[in-house]
């Protein structure tokens, strides 16, 4: 293709052509995952706390609390950490909130861009691998205490089952057989699920257990915000089954949270 004058669309594609982040990079618009080395003061930015994901009979569930903290202070009470990334998958994030949310936005556009350009969705594993690449790109920031650790869950249409992926700060990607958690309350959430989790649970059962795990995490970890019925703040829970991504309604969450908190007493 010959060079066109400045006006109009650019018809050439950056290689390999279907990647949105490569496109941004070729335009010089990619987000910078860097801060100047050794700043004089340590950086403090709001951090998200507990997120978790689990498999169940019909697919996967992924959820998180709503709080972001900055040191000993609560920075935001109603932050959202669980996002559907496309029709068949969702991502949840723990760690530096500002970076995490940008990462989610880039990830979602990447999946949609690929789908539109290629006419078909990326495989679930392809999506997880791409997310791992985004995490790894943030490694320089992680060394300065600004780490982001996502969780990824989705329905694998080829294998006809739900899958959960956890990540570490260097971009390691691990598929979990049962459940995974990330963030400051992750240890408590996992401890709760270790005894409460059973294979082949129904949707009602898994919603109850995941809510229980979030309540347990909030009980011990000061940074995690439990369900706050007085203010009407409830965790976000998203289930993904053969039919796609579905958000659990506030009414249902209120009901489950009320029971969970009564039992936790």
């Amino acid at each position, binding site marked *: 293709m*010959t060079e*066109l*004058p400045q*006006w*109009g*669309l*650019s*018809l050439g*594609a950056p290689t390999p*052509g279907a990647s*949105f982040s490569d*496109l*941004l990079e070729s*335009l010089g*618009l990619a987000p910078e995952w860097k801060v100047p080395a050794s700043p004089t003061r340590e950086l403090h930015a709001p951090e998200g706390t507990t997120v978790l994901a689990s498999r169940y009979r019909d697919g996967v569930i992924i959820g998180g609390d709503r709080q972001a903290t900055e040191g000993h202070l609560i920075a935001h009470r109603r932050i959202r950490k669980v996002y559907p990334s496309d029709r068949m998958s969702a991502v949840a994030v723990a760690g530096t909130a500002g970076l995490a949310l940008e990462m989610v*936005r*880039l990830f979602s*556009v990447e999946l*949609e*861009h690929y789908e*539109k*350009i290629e*006419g078909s969705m990326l495989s679930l594993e392809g999506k997880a691998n791409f997310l791992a690449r985004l995490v790894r790109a943030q490694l320089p920031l992680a060394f300065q205490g600004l780490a982001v650790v996502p969780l990824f869950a989705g329905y694998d249409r080829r294998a006809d089952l739900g899958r959960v992926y956890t990540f570490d700060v260097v971009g390691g990607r691990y598929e979990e057989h049962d459940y995974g958690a990330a963030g400051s309350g992750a240890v408590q959430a996992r401890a709760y699920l270790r005894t409460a989790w059973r294979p082949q649970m129904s949707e009602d059962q898994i919603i109850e257990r995941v809510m229980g795990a979030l309540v347990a995490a909030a009980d011990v970890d000061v940074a995690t915000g439990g369900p706050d019925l007085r203010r009407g703040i409830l965790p976000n829970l998203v289930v993904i089954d053969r039919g796609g991504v579905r958000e659990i309604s506030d009414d249902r969450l209120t009901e489950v949270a009320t029971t969970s908190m009564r039992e936790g007493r």
Partner: protein
Amino acid sequence: MNPGFYVTPEQLVRDRAEFARKGIARGRSILAMEYEKGVLMLAENPGGSLHKISEVYDRIAFAGVGRYNEFETLRKAGIRQADVMGYLYSRDDVTALGLATAFSQTLGVIFSHETKPFEVELLICELGENGQPNQMLQISYDGTLLEGRGVVAIGGKADILGEGLRERFRDGLELDAALRLGMKVFAETERRPLDGWEAAVLERGPARRCFRRLAGPELERASAQALSS
């Protein structure tokens, strides 16, 4: 350098336009019409994998007739432009008019600067939000941009198709009825057995992405009803 023969600009434009029109006339046409819940786009397409209609953004769809590789290049460039704009600013800042203008400029430049013009015609549809009307923008090989209402057809037989459709079209058709009407007009225009359909809608609903392809059984049912009556 050999100065070559002098060709008047009028002659040059006429030749190029004729060349492009001939190329487009060889391909099959596409029509779009508004219905109760949005916009329906319908094409005759024998295969299932080479799409002529596709999603560009949340409420925007693209259709192209003519040379496949040329409108496919434009389609991808449009998606890139839309996704970059939406990522840098907001998803609300991506509009059909902005995209159509970019397509129109690109085609205009190609028409006058390149060795051969693109043999394509494009249609960009946008679903209106909050009571705003839907938009149907038609862009021809030389960059001419036209806005349609209710019914739009592009391609070699656009005039006959559009005319046939406008006679029987009314506002607020249900999807099934709109689909049957479109297929019927196609059949009457072509006067030959039709081999396969491609159809998609931009549909008002709770989902952010309004584009939906109409799949096999839905199309076959409509087709059987339309062609038998």
